[in-house]
């Protein structure tokens, strides 16, 4: 049975998540578009905003938190992070090494 009140509490996180995601995305685009920041600052600002948005998605859309009953989900997240860290760090090591050996002075 979905009473209007219950529907409201169920929908609320999605609305909040949608709003926050929209906000974070438009800030990221705005920073670059309007030339507010440039170079490395812009890069890391966009990266930070992206990470923040990942957290918003986890919290609001996937309902992952630190409570005990969502522990398996958290484990999956940690596993995913490990695999992504392996892939990204490995790629960086390999390509930076290739760069220094082939594009060097």
């Amino acid at each position: 049975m979905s009473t209007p009140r219950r529907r409201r509490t169920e929908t609320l996180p999605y609305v909040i998540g949608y709003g926050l995601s929209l906000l974070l995305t438009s800030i990221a685009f705005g920073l670059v578009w309007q030339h507010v920041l440039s170079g490395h600052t812009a890069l890391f600002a966009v990266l930070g905003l992206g990470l923040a948005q990942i957290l918003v998605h986890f919290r609001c859309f996937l309902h992952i938190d630190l409570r005990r009953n969502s522990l398996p989900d958290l484990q999956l997240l940690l596993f995913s992070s490990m695999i992504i860290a392996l892939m990204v760090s490995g790629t960086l090591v390999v390509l930076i090494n290739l760069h220094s050996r082939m594009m060097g002075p």
Partner: protein
Amino acid sequence: MTGPTITGFLLGSLSWGALPFVRAWREPNISEIIGAGAGSIVVIGAVVTIALITWLQAWEYLWTQWFTSLDHKKIGIMYIVIALVMLSRALIEAVLIRSQQAAAINGPGFVEPGHFAQLFSTHGSIMIFFMAMPFLTGMVNYVVPLQIGARDMAFPYLNSVGLWLTAGGSGLMMASLVVGEFSTGGWSGYPPYTELNFSGGPGPDYWIWAITLASIGSTTAGINIACTIYKFRAPGMTFLRMPLFCWTAVCTAILMIFAMPPLTVATALLAADRYLGTHFFTDDLGGNMMNYVNLFWLFGHPEVYIVVLPSFGVYSEVVSAFSSKELYGYKSLVIATMAIGVLSFTVWLHHFFTMGQSADINAVFGIATMAIAIPTGVKIYDWIFTMFRGEVRFTPPMVLSLAFMVTFVLGGFTGVILATPPLNYMVHNTLFVVAHFHNMLIPGTLYGLLAGYMYWFPKAFGFRLNERLGWISAGCWITGFYLAFFPLYVLGASGMARRTHEVFDPAFRPWLYVALFGAFVLFTALVTLFVQLFVSIRDRHANMVAVGDPWDARGLEWSVAAPPPEWNFAVIPQVESRDAFYWRKRNREAYKPVDHYQDIELPKPSACGVIVGLSAAACGFGLVWRIWWLVALFGAVVVATVIIRSFLRDVTRTIPAAEVEAFDRRWLAQAHYAKPVSRQREMSRRNEGLAEWTA
């Protein structure tokens, strides 16, 4: 508008010359005639199939009962049908490749270089993306829900979409035989060769879009399988009570989820280079093709384990069932599976040791590669100890499993050789590498999938496959493999480059002839496989195993009728231990009626999956030939279908309790009247699917 612009608008870059028949007419040489022959096989095959279905008036049946079905069992079977069709094509191409090399010693042979390059490119792409992947996805689809005590996959509609995307991709592969040509850049499609500068034709585009459809399909399948195993296990089915096939399935699913995106990104960026004029992987204007190589193998190595792990799961089931013994070292097998899953993300660089990174980095990845041999070795020992003092029966699946153990270990040794970077430099890009990976993938994937096909076939269709033809087929797969690929080790170590169109050293001749003979034996194996299917269907009434447990096996999938009802289980089983059904039989609790039957809710059939998959394929065809109206039209159809489907609310139907009860009671009566069969007689006609057991 003038004439040319109208046809240009309607047909993009398509022209008469795209048809192999026209090319063969203009330049009638053997190479073009082979191309035209292959194209006509596709056309005739399609026409005959359509005519046959029409003649049998089976369209409605196929559409309502199969194509639109969201039943995980039917989707699984359709996946495997695609895999078998594509296996046939790719195996014939392999025979052609070997024939050309055997014929081209100090001569041009009979296939032109460009055509030869298409042959090895399609062979590789098909065997990985359209044979191994659909085969294993289909098998997981069929078996896993039954093994974990679920009624369907977590997302039945997504399942259908994945199937039809794969089917659409296969359709594009087939279309490339009839319209235009395929890529000549190998299955890995390395730029800059596959960039517009060097491959201007439609070939790489076919490759890009066929692979993209298949990899999106596989990503969805991975998500679906993982969710099903995480969320849909029957009460009491804890992770450590799951059959080992489920463990390998969940590990494969996780690998799919993480490994497919790098491939999709790589092909998408390559497409951007070819269509939008970007420079991600070009050799000028800041492009860097090494990025592609890195991305491709970030996918490519986990992919090896995606295709190998499900077979490991099959072997675990088969060896245990046909030795009448509990799987030895269950926990060590689980740990080994997960260890392989993680390690598979740490070794991708061994596919490009020679790209120019420092020796230290090569050493790190070489050692990581060798480390994978450890969990794999654990598994081999576990299977051997499972057989130890068991009641081993040499059924065809068991023969394939035994052949796997020996052959795979040999391939593993050559893998350790290749994992040593200095040795890898010596045999880089030679047939040694080809011999090695076929030595891993044929036993490690194909034997396992075939063993699984023969093992679960009676469950899926209710009758056993003909064992004699099964042995012949298995024997041919095994001897064919050794004959076809062990000569390649010699040739590779002697320096024969892979993908060679012409050979100039007569000393290679005997080895190439042996390899060609092996290819013919493998082709015989394939033919025998189809003959086995035909003969088994013809003799099905004598080999019925309707009660559903022909091998005295252990998992829950054997605890239901064969073929299982659409709802799988009359009531969701309660699981108390590993090998749940085996212990239920031993405790005399199997084949008991249920106290109270209930209505069962199942997903309604849906045409959306078919529409999405086939429209995506049409969209891909438009992209290949730059027919923009086709792209826009079918791209819109895909998006619209996905959105419209998400608004449908009435997507389930209810099976009344009475129907469930009627089916269940009929089956229980069959089980009651069936004569139990002993293990010595399980391959005889006495096998009705009820196992004789002693407590």
